[in-house]
């Protein structure tokens, strides 16, 4: 940042307020307010503590939950896969030994760590939040600096409540205007990733700004920030505003009464200053974004639903051309074909990207009065026990079950297939998750990323299609 400019960005302010010490070469010891822990990336970290005789510095700033491995079917039965069971039991042993607050599998509040944190008021604006999971960026929707870390860093945070890092660069992505009907936060984010690419945000923290972002509810902002990592960014941020405060107020672990008012005053001061310097600026027009899906094996392989799959002959770089060909072969698609109309075998609505109550409502609005197409397996996996309970309170479970969907328990599920929810080789899935990598949802599975409304539309028609056509019919 130029020294002549004392204006600071949202990122700069949160960063500055958490620097314990700046070391000689510019590396900072950065204090961490919240450390979220799950069963997959923590066992080796706890083992490291044990081997070196170290304790957890701030168990009262640490919260654990199981999500990646858990079955989303009947929870009254024991976990069948022995390795999954071992990982969950290992977490339970570790939280007991080190005194860490924990949401167990059969807790009514258990769920995906990035759904549970905000929902419980554990994640709050202005905080630094880490977790051994790249989609920790989700919590940036609250106006907190939240990023994923590796297991060595998990151990470092457990032992010291700090992390060693140099400041990131600032990027601002502004989406101005109003989105059209049927266009969601997911479509906005896919459009952004399509524009800047999966490495576009490398080394940066992205602040999402502009009127279309302000108009999003908290669930939408979480979807957006969740996929910051798919744009290569360290984290995503939305400045905390009245929408944020209304969301936070009254959550179990949020400050109460006077403490809440004082916190709001601080949180209001965090917005980027007028004239603050951004290393990179990108602007999109909301009106130009239409419902989108991915066609390939990288989240940047985005198409508007009326678009056609690219051809290797469209690009000059031979390495890039080979990559397109490989993606086409993997996905079982022909160069130049229309993406709309592609038949699907499976529909997955869930994951830390799109499993909140608002997401389920959007899907239910499309499904109501319709039925899952013949031969399609469609599943709804709520993000948490509380989301599931609230959805059932609104009768959404009935909408989905009547239409032929599976209504499951909370967990990461088919986003990454660590539990039994997996694609079989060659199966094609419309998925509300975040990654369409080769094998992500199961070996040789084919993933098309899209919004909950678009996934619901695919479920009832049996093919990728423009949700706006279905919604028009209903109106």
């Amino acid at each position: 940042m130029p020294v002549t400019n004392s204006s600071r960005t949202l990122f700069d302010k949160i960063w500055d307020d958490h620097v314990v010490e700046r070391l000689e070469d510019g590396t900072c010891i950065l204090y961490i307010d919240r450390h979220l822990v799950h069963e997959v990336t923590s066992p080796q970290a706890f083992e490291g503590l044990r081997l070196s005789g170290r304790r957890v510095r701030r168990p009262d700033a640490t919260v654990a939950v199981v999500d990646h491995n858990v079955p989303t079917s009947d929870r009254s039965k024991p976990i069948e896969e022995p390795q999954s069971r071992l990982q969950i039991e290992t977490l339970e042993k570790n939280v007991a030994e080190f005194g860490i607050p924990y949401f167990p599998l059969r807790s009514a509040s258990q769920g995906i760590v990035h759904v549970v944190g905000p929902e419980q008021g554990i994640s709050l604006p202005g905080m630094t939040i880490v977790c051994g999971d790249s989609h920790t960026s989700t919590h940036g929707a609250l106006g907190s600096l939240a990023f994923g870390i590796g297991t060595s860093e998990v151990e470092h945070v457990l032992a010291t409540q700090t992390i060693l890092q140099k400041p990131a660069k600032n990027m601002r992505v502004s989406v101005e205007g109003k989105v059209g009907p049927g266009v969601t936060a997911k479509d906005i984010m896919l459009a952004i990733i399509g524009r800047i690419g999966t490495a576009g945000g490398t080394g940066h923290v992205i602040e999402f700004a502009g009127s279309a972002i302000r108009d999003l509810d908290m669930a939408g902002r979480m979807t957006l920030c969740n996929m910051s990592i798919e744009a290569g960014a360290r984290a995503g941020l939305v400045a905390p505003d009245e929408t944020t405060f209304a969301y936070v107020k009254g959550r179990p672990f949020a400050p109460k009464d006077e403490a809440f008012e004082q916190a709001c005053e601080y949180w209001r001061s965090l917005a980027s200053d007028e004239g603050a310097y951004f290393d990179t600026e990108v602007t999109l027009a909301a009106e130009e974004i239409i419902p989108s899906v991915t066609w390939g094996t990288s989240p940047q392989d985005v198409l508007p639903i009326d678009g056609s799959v690219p051809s290797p002959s469209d690009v000059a770089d031979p390495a890039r051309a080979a990559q397109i060909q490989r993606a086409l072969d993997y996905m079982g698609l022909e160069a130049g074909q229309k993406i709309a109309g592609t038949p699907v075998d499976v529909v997955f609505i869930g994951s830390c990207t799109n499993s909140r109550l608002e997401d389920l409502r959007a899907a239910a609005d499309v499904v109501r009065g319709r039925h899952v197409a013949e031969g399609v397996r469609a599943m709804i996996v709520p993000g948490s026990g509380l989301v599931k309970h609230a959805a059932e309170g609104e009768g959404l479970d009935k909408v989905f079950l009547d239409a032929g969907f599976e209504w499951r328990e909370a967990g990461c599920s088919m986003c990454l297939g660590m539990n039994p929810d997996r694609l079989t080789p060659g199966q094609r899935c419309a998925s509300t998750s975040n990654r369409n990598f080769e094998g992500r949802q199961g070996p040789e599975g084919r993933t098309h990323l899209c919004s909950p409304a678009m996934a619901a539309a695919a479920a009832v028609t049996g093919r990728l299609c423009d949700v706006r056509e279905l919604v028009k019919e209903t109106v």
Partner: protein
Amino acid sequence: MDKFTELTAIAAPMPTENIDTDQIIPARFLKTIQRTGLGKSAFAAQRYDADGNEKPDFVLNQDPYRHAEILITYDNLGCGSSREHAPWALLDFGIRCVIAPSFADIFFNNCFKNGILPIPLPRQICDELMDDARQGSNSRLTVDLERQVIVRPNGETIPFEVDPFRRHMLLEGLDDIGQTMAHDAEISSFEHRPARAWVPSITIGTVK
């Protein structure tokens, strides 16, 4: 962590962009509670067929690359998941150095924590090094962290940049937790700043 000082080794060319950590180690192998033993599952989808047999066209199934200790790829190596199982799998396979035009942030960081040196170099230089690598076992590269150079088989040296702090940690094989714990007084003093009074504690027993 093992020190990294100088490495002379076979390099495997993988001329692909966006090699994600799901490719390096698919999620179904993340159920371990150990750091070791993941080498046999590195790049599993590309390395083995459905019956577990090696696919002969995959570079790490070919001689001499099954003994590679250096990996050269194209842009954005290690994108996606933060899983440290990715560098653990590479390390367990035998990889100590990865070279690419660019890296994803978390993977880049995770490499250093495990004694793997990630070196960003321009695409054109990566192409030249890949050409060297394609010549097989008579064509080893030397990576000298002390001097910050790569020595090509023809004797040409290619300088590279590395963060001084991280270089120091690798050369000495140091554990950064111990280093940070030496700043305990500063961390404690930070925790007691009045401006932080709003940050709530989470008491065990309140989470259910």
